[in-house]
């Protein structure tokens, strides 16, 4: 975590964009060099980078992430609010892609070479090389513009306050983003699970089971699930970062006001505290995901002792 903080802070220091210019915006021309000097001193930009970093780190530890000038709120509040909206999208897509991906992988692996397997594999290969945002654009074109089934944007109807939006409307707005995000995540887990299933089907365990009269589906169900679930779980948690990256693009296309959209806004409008805050937050998010995966390891497979290794 400290490394992430150091690297991202270093990058921000290296940025050619002057934070004072970005803060002032169009008022830049109205300000005198003396006033500028004052702001620089007030914000501590005249200190050497190491001192600035120490200062920032100390604030960080005490829970202060700084002030976001584009939302005019403390960074931690912006992240909290945005994340609440994103979590619905992320968790929905994550569950859907993990379950569906695993299921498809098991089926494809169990019936290697069948038409079903070919369809699933081809689908997985194609989605693995599809740009996320393009899929989202296609989805909007087809379902929102042409068919009119789902709204084209946002988390609720335009012009209404977020408190007034009912759960059903919220879900209606979420359906398409979640599906799109999930469709992309499925491919990875499917291909991985399929490989695992193929491995199993060629192993002695499977041969024994076949000799006892078990069908392919029986073997897949009884042995395959356990054999393939471990890597699938790991992969599902390890792909959290990728999922988050995908959500940035998806939120941008659907204009969904979540954390991803805030990230883009922060980057494009030079809101450095917010950008740093989000980078740290997502790093934490990903690390927690990996930690959970490690813990689940030992729950699913008691032979693995995480603390010992």
């Amino acid at each position, binding site marked *: *975590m400290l*490394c*992430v903080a150091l*690297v*991202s802070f270093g*990058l*921000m220091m*290296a*940025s*050619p*964009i002057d934070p004072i210019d970005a803060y002032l915006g169009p008022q830049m021309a109205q300000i005198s060099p003396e006033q500028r000097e004052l702001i620089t001193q007030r914000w501590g930009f005249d200190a050497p980078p190491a001192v600035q970093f120490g200062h920032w780190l100390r604030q960080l530890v005490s829970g202060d992430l700084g002030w976001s000038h584009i939302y005019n709120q403390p960074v931690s509040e912006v992240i909290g609010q945005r994340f609440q909206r994103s979590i619905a999208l992320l968790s929905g897509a994550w569950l859907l892609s993990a379950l569906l991906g695993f299921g498809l992988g098991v089926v494809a692996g169990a019936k290697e070479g069948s038409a079903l397997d070919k369809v699933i594999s081809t689908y997985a*290969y*194609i989605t*693995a*090389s*599809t*740009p*996320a*945002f*393009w899929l989202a*654009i*296609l989805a*909007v*074109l087809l379902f929102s*513009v*042409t068919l009119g089934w789902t709204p*084209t944007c946002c988390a609720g109807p335009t012009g209404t306050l977020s408190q007034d939006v009912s759960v059903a409307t919220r879900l209606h707005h979420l359906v398409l983003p979640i599906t799109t995000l999930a469709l992309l995540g499925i491919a990875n887990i499917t291909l991985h699970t399929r490989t695992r299933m193929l491995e199993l089907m060629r192993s002695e365990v499977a041969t024994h089971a076949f000799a006892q009269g078990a069908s392919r589906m029986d073997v897949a169900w009884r042995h395959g699930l356990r054999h393939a679930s471990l890597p699938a779980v790991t992969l599902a948690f390890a792909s959290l*970062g*990728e999922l*988050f*990256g*995908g959500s*940035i*693009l998806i939120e*941008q*296309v659907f204009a969904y006001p979540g954390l991803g959209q805030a*990230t*883009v806004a922060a*980057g*494009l409008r*030079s809101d450095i505290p917010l*950008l740093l805050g*989000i*980078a740290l937050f*997502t*790093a934490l998010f*990903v*690390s927690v995901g*990996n930690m959970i995966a490690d813990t689940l390891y030992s729950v699913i497979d008691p032979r693995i002792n995480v603390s010992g290794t």
Partner: protein
Amino acid sequence: MRHAQPRIRAAFSLAVTSLLVISLITSQWWLGDSPQQMQFDTRLAPPSVHHWFGTDALGRELWARTLAGLALSFWVGCLAALLSTLIALSLAALATLSRRLDALVSLLIDTLLSVPHLILLMLIAFALGGGTQAVIIAVAVTHWPSLARVLRAELLQLRQAPYVRISRALGKSRWFVLYRHLLPHLLPHCLVGGLLLFPHAILHEAALTFLGFGLSPSQPAIGVLLADAMRYLSGGYWWLGVFPGLGLLLMVLSFDRLSSHLRRAL
């Protein structure tokens, strides 16, 4: 026959990919300036015999722009993948030199992997101020860890090989061994690894540009085309969004297939 099929497939994908690459490389000559040429009497024309992919809001030919965008993506992807491979190779080599360096490289890899790729890309592109160079560097800097891991493992294994140990025992220096014995062995891995990186590099370049952190909006990059298409989405101008993305998908897919065929052959 069962053994011949994968070969035929591999040859097929090689043929498709090389055809694509040749047409992309030469496209700037036979396209001329048509990607930028505006014709205001045919704005937003749907696909037809005259306008294969239709035209955009300024009457520019979409198929020319798509092709130019793919060529741009290709070059950016090539440079980024090459740079990334070089980084991976040199860091993997460094990691095998001493235990402390190894720990340092591992730490670097873990740091890079713990931030979502896209966020890191945005941070780097932001820090470098955007533009083509920034994108290439950002993509190169974020994509090496997986390849570096493979190369490091390979190097560690190779170091125990008899001919390497004999060479060391004969008093050759570390650098000599690295240069003469280890690098030639690693080159195929690098080639395949770089080729595997390539599709990712292209996709991330397009994503970055789409979000507005990458290539400048005046260039006909795929990300720019798609970001433009977003603005005309609700008007039902479907061709603006469909064709550039489809082109990108086909390019990524063809490279992806080719590299996985190659990896299996290795």
